[in-house]
């Protein structure tokens, strides 16, 4: 754009280690397919020191309460089959590495699925239990648990092979200027990251930290709920959480952050 004299502001120089032991990569060389960025940064790097500190210790991180809730669900039988997650999957730690590669092509279903879809697939088809609301508290807590055991592992979603057309659809959505304000994800998170938009310090909008505990609404927020909020703020008709559009967008946005560490549940404002 024609913005002489305005340089892209920088993320800060802080580094993140959780509980003094889980080293988190918050800055990495951009993957080749993240075309217009040289370096990718976790959203953590754009938050204030006070907000950053809350994520550095699980005793301070309110998102860990959701993880604890989910640990109860993990071990509790639900549904007509009388089974719990633990009955089939063992300890929740066995999910280590799973968060890092989702969304992912599911051969059996012949489509890209998100973690939420996998959880509901197990609930409906393997437990005979009622599915959870896509962005509901039970679901988001469970995603926080599954994410927490992958913290520190690099995000590494596949964008080629059968996932490619979904990825392309997500990319198209990322660059589409929606609503009466005609803003795209790229306008805010690629062209303007590091700058202030009103009171908000814009990050690159990565999802390696999801679910995020937001100090603003004091709860864990899912990826699709965040997408919905950002699209709504362009005065647009949003897509629905769990829709094909948001699944595609999630795959694309996740891939832009390949190389950053899984951080969820993270803390943001």
């Amino acid at each position, binding site marked *: 754009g024609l913005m002489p004299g305005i340089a892209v502001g920088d993320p800060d120089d802080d580094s993140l280690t959780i509980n003094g032991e889980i080293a988190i990569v918050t800055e990495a060389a951009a993957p080749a397919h993240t075309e217009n960025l040289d370096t990718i940064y976790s959203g953590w790097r754009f938050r204030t020191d006070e907000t950053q500190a809350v994520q550095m210790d699980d005793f301070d991180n309110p998102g860990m309460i959701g993880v604890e809730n989910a640990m109860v669900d993990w071990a509790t039988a639900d549904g007509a089959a009388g089974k719990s997650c633990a009955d089939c999957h063992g300890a929740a730690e066995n999910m280590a590495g799973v968060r890092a590669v989702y969304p992912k092509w599911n051969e059996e279903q012949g489509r890209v699925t998100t973690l939420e879809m996998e959880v509901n697939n197990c609930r409906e088809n393997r437990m005979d239990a009622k599915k959870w609301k896509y962005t509901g508290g039970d679901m988001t807590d469970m995603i926080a648990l599954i994410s927490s055991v992958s913290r520190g592992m690099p995000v590494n979603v596949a964008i080629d092979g059968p996932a490619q057309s979904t990825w392309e659809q997500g990319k198209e959505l990322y660059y589409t200027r929606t609503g009466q304000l005609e803003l795209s994800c790229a306008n805010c998170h690629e062209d303007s990251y590091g700058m202030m938009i*009103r*009171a908000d310090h814009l990050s690159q909008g990565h999802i390696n930290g999801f679910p995020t505990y937001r100090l603003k609404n004091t709860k864990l927020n899912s990826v699709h709920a965040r997408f919905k909020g950002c699209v709504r703020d362009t005065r647009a008709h949003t897509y629905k959480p769990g829709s094909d559009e948001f699944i595609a967008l999630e795959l694309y946005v996740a891939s832009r952050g390949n190389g950053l560490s899984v951080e969820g549940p993270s803390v943001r404002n």
Partner: protein
Amino acid sequence: MRTAFGATAAILLTVSTGWSEVVKPQDVTYVEGAVETSLSGAPGDPILGAEVMNKGAGNCIACHQVTALNHLPFHGEIGPMLDGVADRWTEAELRGIVANAKVMFEGSMMPSFYRTDGFIRLGDAYTGDAHGDGEVQPLLTAQQVEDVVAYLMTLKEE
């Protein structure tokens, strides 16, 4: 007699412009990005225009810094600082920029404040729902555009 009649006619004309000469968003003529005449047919009020700059109306300071509005919190930095903007642009150019900045600056991130068509997935304000069949209102009324332009014309440094 002729003079008196002329004066009466002039008054009638001025009165009628107040309501009949609002230029509709789709009828605005841009010449190199500028719009020559008042969109409302009336002059703008810079004091009301300063309010349009704030949240709840134009929210211009979400993206622009303005020293004269330092009493309002949180100025963004997406667009250029507007101090001295009246030295850089004429009134007609400022009107064009506010009404539809994308004519002056191709592909600009600045929203078009006086345009009602061509949107993708137009919503019902900030509800996230679809807009529906009702008439689309521009982000600012013709008079609000005039007010904000009048305010911008006060931002002189030279």
